């Protein structure tokens, strides 16, 4: 049964139920009158009540069909095959069934397995029959639900209260999605990391200085020759995201915010702020392309011109510089918030003593806004170390433990991408290590975020 047909059926049930209930509600109003309390709920609520009772059981059955139907059909098709037509193993069965499914969908013109064509025909018959059974079942169930709901309606029946209670359930479920997502992230990262740490010791992972997972390509090599010391990755991440990028972003972002909040005319501010927002809205893949195509060669040429002969075309500096520029609007807007939160009286006090605006900013404003600015910078660091595309495209994959900004370094995120793209076996240490890296990244950014948000919140409250 197609999705469209199922939806049409649900629409029919819901619409029919609504009309039935509503009609009953209208009849109540006709007999009981329109004064407050004569009929508890408006006709529309009677309709909605009946519609929900019709829809819920029918939808439940259809969902069950979507989840289980395939299995039921497959079992019937397999049972109907001549003995020995399909190999005994689970794998054989799966391969056979996927071929049959392909035939049914029309993906394949002809079958590879001689039994598959017959099975496909049987599949279609079974699918039609089961579809009919489940479809009619859903219709019947919906009709029963609607009738039951309809029979409960009376003038004093609290249809509105019931419908609203069901609405509340929907709202609660929606807000649980956020918890489920967090739980899903933590669970999947922890679970896969746990499998990884069964192959590689956490101590080696966290403190080892050799990173070369690429050697563990073949299954029989797993864990034997691949090296999973992630320190060079952590260093590369910190070097690019927390050092080079911040050296660019903090002064530029802060000065931008100071200029915009303290000096710029309102009209200029009105134009400059959206431009900065555009800068913040440019996708990171574009920054990455720009870093790789324009900035990295320029950095390399510069390195050669100052006498560094082995300058790499993928350098920490190129990635860090571009990432720093990317973060400027973020730092600037956080600093902007922090500066505008400082009470005007503080500024006026300093100016009234004869200090110039710049002296006021440096001696009074910035010290007063410092907690807010620091919080913003920490959030920016968290964002920079989680940034992926720029480093993937411009920083390279060589795990070097180096202080030379012209050298190529790699980061946690770049390695996650490298480890998980392309063909993967899901239980090799190589792919699982990506989840361990993800777990470290998640925990570090989480800690930074929680701490930074707390700092910013405390700062805002101090001046409220």
């Amino acid at each position, binding site marked *: 049964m197609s999705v469209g047909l199922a939806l049409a059926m649900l629409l029919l049930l819901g619409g029919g139920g609504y009309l039935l209930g509503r009609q009953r509600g209208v009849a109540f*109003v006709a007999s009981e009158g*329109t*004064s*407050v*309390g004569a*009929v*508890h709920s*408006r006709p529309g609520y009677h309709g909605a009540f009946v519609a929900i009772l019709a829809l819920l059981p029918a939808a439940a059955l259809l969902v069950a069909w979507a989840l289980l139907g395939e299995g039921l059909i497959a079992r019937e098709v397999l049972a109907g095959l001549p003995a020995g037509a399909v190999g005994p193993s689970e794998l054989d069965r799966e391969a056979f069934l996927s071929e049959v499914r392909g035939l049914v969908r029309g993906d394949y013109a002809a079958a590879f397995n001689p039994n598959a064509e017959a099975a496909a025909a049987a599949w279609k018959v079974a699918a039609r029959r089961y579809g009919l059974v489940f479809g009619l079942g859903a219709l019947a169930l919906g009709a029963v639900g609607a009738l039951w709901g309809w029979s409960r309606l009376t003038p004093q029946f609290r249809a509105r209260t019931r419908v609203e209670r069901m609405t509340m359930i929907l709202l609660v479920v929606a807000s649980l999605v956020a918890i489920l997502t967090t739980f899903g992230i933590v669970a999947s990262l922890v679970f896969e990391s746990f499998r990884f740490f069964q192959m590689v010791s956490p101590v080696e992972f966290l403190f080892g200085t050799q990173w070369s997972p690429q050697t563990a390509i073949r299954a029989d090599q797993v864990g034997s020759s691949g090296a999973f010391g992630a320190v060079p990755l952590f260093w590369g991440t910190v070097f690019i995201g927390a050092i080079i990028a911040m050296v660019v972003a903090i002064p530029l972002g802060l000065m931008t915010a100071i200029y915009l909040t303290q000096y710029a005319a309102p009209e200029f501010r009105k134009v400059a702020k959206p431009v900065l927002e555009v800068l913040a809205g440019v996708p990171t893949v574009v920054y990455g392309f720009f870093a790789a195509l324009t900035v990295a060669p320029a950095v390399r040429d510069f390195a050669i011109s100052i006498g560094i002969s082995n300058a790499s075309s993928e350098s920490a500096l190129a990635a860090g510089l571009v990432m720093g520029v990317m973060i400027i609007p973020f730092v600037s807007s956080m600093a902007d918030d922090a500066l505008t939160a400082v009470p005007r009286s503080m500024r006026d006090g300093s100016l009234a003593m004869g200090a110039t605006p710049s002296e006021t900013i440096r001696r009074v404003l910035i010290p007063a806004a410092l907690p807010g600015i620091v919080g913003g910078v920490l959030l920016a660091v968290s964002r920079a170390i989680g940034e992926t595309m720029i480093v993937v495209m411009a920083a390279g994959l060589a795990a070097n433990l180096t202080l030379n900004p012209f050298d190529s370094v790699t980061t946690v995120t770049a390695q996650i991408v490298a480890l998980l793209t392309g063909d993967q076996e899901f239980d090799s240490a190589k792919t699982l290590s990506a989840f361990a890296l993800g777990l470290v990244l998640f925990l570090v950014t989480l800690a930074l975020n929680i701490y930074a948000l707390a700092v910013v919140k405390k700062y805002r409250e101090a001046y409220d």
Partner: protein
Amino acid sequence: MNDMALTATAPAAAAETTLKMTARDVRVFYGEFEAIKGVSIDVSKEDVTAFIGPSGCGKSTFLRCLNRMNDTVAAARVTGDIRLDGQDIYSPEMDVVQLRARVGMVFQKPNPFPKSIYENVAYGPRIHGLARSKADMDVVVEKSLRRAGLWDEVKDRLGDSGTALSGGQQQRLCIARAIAVNPEVILMDEPASALDPIATAKIEELIDDLRGRYAIVIVTHNMQQAARVSQKTAFFHLGTLVEYGDTREIFTNPKETRTKDYITGRYG
């Protein structure tokens, strides 16, 4: 203190007035704090009842118990017994939505919906299903606006936004909106405190016009206003009902020294 409140109540329940709402030993707690400390009072159908008292005395809190608006404050807990026509309004059988249709409310700050004047008035009848047709609704809207003394000012611009009216007009629109669902009681929480003297006078006139048709309870911090519009006055202080009786009696011959002190402006 409680005893005194009760004795003060007794003469108010005179034979010639019909009781609309009764409250017995009502207490309101915000967490640990007891905001209303056992108030008992009767509201009669024919009169305008004024609640007066210094700010923070609990008169507004008590008013909001009468149509269960305190339900929306999660921390608030109400005990005691409040009845509308003998029916316990805090019992599980009472549908709070229907209760609020029967006991309407007008707020301190005019708060029309950001919709047309017509829609503002029609909203209540619509959610309660009081009009069978558009023509019915037109009648309800006109009748309510007329009663609120606003019809002549807005009849040509019913489609304009309610928020575009002047403050006094907005407040009368809010009264029309409350009237439209045909309530039995109208609670007014300092309805004129945000208005200028002319608009205030109009509201007071309107309250006088509405008297008799609806039981009206008005909270005010303005003693002159209480004296002008009400027949019964209750004086609240620190969460207790200090004195309740005929308005003239309270203002000319208060029994309690605290009432006297307040009326003569010694505190407040």
